[in-house]
């Protein structure tokens, strides 16, 4: 993304959002009548349009705060983090949020704004996800993104990041975070965060410099559900942020879907309860496509055009039955390690198979093409 100086309107909007005396509700109302730059001036001179929204004390407090506010520092910060600022009346404001009663007055964004114009589905779930939960999230993310659906999530540990990772491989994704866009929370996901701010989109309703705090995450969840057409909960315990997202989604009339799990697994109790209460179960990505009203033609086409031959054919055949280790492959091929390794490496390079923790699996696109062949 090219470095671009923030416009005066953006700086003013960011400054307005940073004032602690200014509540989101008042700011929303004020912005519906006047553009940010003018509004900033109005505060200093105390014009009636803004003054009447406040009590005398509160307005004095607002004025003092605005007077002391270092607007140039805000400009420099926005520029340094290449952050865009849009208000709820701007044309770029996502259509899904426009009618929302609780829409944020100002949004901060880093990344590719055009992503906001596409159809979105949220994939959320617990931070303490199991390996299989994360694998499910990644798979759903990949398949939705490959079909041109933007995957929305919260960049948290566990399910969220797994979904982002999957989507980044095949398409676009949006992260809604609960702190300022100048920092990555959790810090462990810096690499994902960096990639997302460069090629995808990260959104926050909080000004730069805002630290993460517990109360911000439910608000972040509200934005996730408001942006998306469908909220898919992959794994969740009895309580948790993803259930808040689901509830917010229901209040907004968005569809809620959940991935069913065994009743013996703690991380599935929340999703199973959602299904009991009427959420649509997700047994494969096709269920989500159906909910979106997408036909089979939208489904991703096989990507690899590489022709496999020789031992590679046998390896692909074995892996189509189950995932295997190198050890098992060598045994089944009953040949030297060298030959198997060379064949496996070729398949890996052409992304026909994938490796994780020493286990080989057919990659997603190969599986899809396998299904279609039948």
């Amino acid at each position, binding site marked *: 993304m090219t470095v671009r100086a923030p416009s005066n309107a953006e700086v003013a909007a960011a400054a307005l959002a940073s004032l602690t005396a200014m509540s989101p509700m008042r700011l929303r109302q004020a912005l519906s009548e006047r553009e940010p730059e003018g509004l900033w001036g109005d505060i200093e001179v105390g014009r009636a349009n803004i003054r009447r929204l406040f009590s005398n004390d509160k307005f004095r407090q607002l004025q003092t705060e605005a007077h002391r506010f270092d607007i140039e520092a805000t400009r420099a910060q926005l520029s340094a983090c290449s952050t865009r600022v849009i208000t709820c009346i701007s044309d770029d404001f996502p259509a899904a949020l426009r009618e929302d009663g609780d829409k944020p007055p100002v949004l901060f964004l880093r990344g590719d704004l055009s992503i906001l114009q596409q159809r979105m589905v949220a994939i959320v779930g617990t931070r303490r996800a*199991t390996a299989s939960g994360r694998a499910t999230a990644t798979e759903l993310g990949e398949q939705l993104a490959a079909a041109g659906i933007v995957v929305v999530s919260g960049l948290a*540990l566990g399910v969220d990041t797994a979904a982002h990772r999957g989507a980044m*491989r095949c398409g676009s994704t949006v992260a809604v975070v609960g702190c300022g866009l100048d920092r990555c929370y959790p810090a462990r996901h810096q690499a994902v965060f960096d990639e997302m701010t460069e090629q995808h989109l990260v959104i926050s309703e909080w000004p730069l410099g805002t630290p993460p705090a517990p109360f911000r995450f439910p608000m972040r969840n509200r934005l996730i559900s408001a942006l998306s057409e469908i909220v898919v909960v992959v794994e969740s315990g009895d309580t948790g942020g993803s259930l808040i997202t689901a509830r917010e989604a229901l209040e907004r009339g968005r569809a809620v879907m959940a991935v069913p799990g065994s009743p013996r697994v703690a991380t599935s109790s929340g999703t199973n309860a959602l299904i009991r209460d009427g959420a649509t179960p997700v047994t494969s990505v096709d269920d989500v496509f159906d909910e979106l009203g997408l036909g089979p033609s939208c489904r991703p086409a096989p990507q690899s055009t590489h022709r496999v031959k020789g031992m590679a054919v046998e390896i692909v055949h074995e892996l189509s039955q189950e995932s295997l280790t*190198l050890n098992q492959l060598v045994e089944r091929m009953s040949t030297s*390690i060298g030959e198997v390794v*060379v064949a*496996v490496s070729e398949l890996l390079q052409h992304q026909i198979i994938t490796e*994780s*923790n*020493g286990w080989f699996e057919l990659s997603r696109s190969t599986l899809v093409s396998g299904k279609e062949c039948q």
Partner: protein
Amino acid sequence: MIASVTSATILGARGYSVQVEVHVGRGLPGFSMLGLPDEACREARDRVRAAVLSSGLNWPDQKITVNLAPPHHRKTGSGLDLPIALGVLLATQQLPADGVATSCVIGELGLDGSIRSIPGVAPMVGVHPQADWIVPADGVREAQLVTSGKVRSTASLRELVDALAGIGDWGTVPPGIQNEHTVDLGPDLADVRGQPVARFALEVAAAGGHHLLFIGPPGSGKTMLAERLPYLLPDLPHDLSLETTMVQSAAGVRLPPGGLVRRPPFRAPHHTSTAPALVGGGAHHLRPGEISIAHGGVLFLDEMGQFAPAVIDCLREALETGSISISRAQHHVTLPARFQLVGATNPCPCGEGLRPGACRCDERSRRRYLGRLSGPILDRFDLRVAVERSQVGELMATEPSESSAIVAKRVEKARRLAFERSGGTNADIPQSEIDTFAPLSTAAVRRLRAELDAGHLTGRGLHRVRRTSRTIADLEATPNEIIDERHVEIALSLRTAIGVERQ
């Protein structure tokens, strides 16, 4: 009435010469010992007195002063019992002065006057390698390894006094099995069914001296495989053999009958081991730890994820330099510690394994589990192999797998090649000379560059893969001087990225 006997004590894995001076003179009857004796050493007083009396000799009713020179360093252990007893006997003229003058003496005494074995005979004898020595019977073999003088022993103090006086015989040392090669009958690789990749990794580790990590669920045979590694290694070269003998003797490890440790040791400390137990230390004599006892051989850390992280980190210096320096307020010793590290760990607390979807652990506990051995230590394993439980068919297979003897032959051949090329094992090829000793074919360079570009390999990892590739090339029936793409490919596949999300 003063007498002086030359003896030795031990600090770390080295002996130090000690002069035991005994003065018996007028004064209130009593016994005092100078020269920083430690607790065990101070107790010599009562042992020596009882032993002298039980041997039918006289204990002087006079003031006895024992000085252990040099006085500034701490004397440890019970090996000074015998020299003190001889000193008292000399000072009271119960022994002819010329009997002991030319000999150095070590040994512990029992209350009945018997002479008992002590640890560390070899390093102690090594401080006077030309002198004659009197040592406990068990230590004769190892003493003979390090001194060119006469080594003599008797079973008890009484016999020793008689022998020194020329009226008794010296104890006979059993005829020399010293040069006989003892055949090592250990667990055989033929017992391991299936697991071709893990077996191959073991062979590569043996041939190149590479550190090896097995990752897999319980029951997948990690321990079984690791225990078989020492039997694939050739005998120790003579100088290394001597070093290992010294350390093991100092640590009180039971030595083989010939006295010399010829086979690479295998040490498997439990995961509750403390840092001093692993790297060496302790109050006064700084006993060698497991990593030094494993010098020249294999250190196997089972359940590596269960070791305290601080303990694991202690290994770093030794892995880097092949020795470990232990410093205490009063002493500083450097112990040899050139060992091959073999680790085994579960991939996560539930132990279900790495099979996609099998693990029931949440992300945080997995991360914490593997995080304990992540980073610098994980990076030092040239070979990281994921092992899984064998399938039923393999377990019930009747045809035996390749035996250790056959694999050991290949290993020896590859090690000889490496030694002729670089003077050491392939794992020890210095970074500056890696281009000379491990040249790559164009295809191999291209393959490695692709891995680097994809971010799958770090700079350090690159050199490790090149060293492993060297060994893999050396192991082939017709060894190739230039490393080919195929060798690099195999080396890469034996370096599974665990716990790292390669996405």
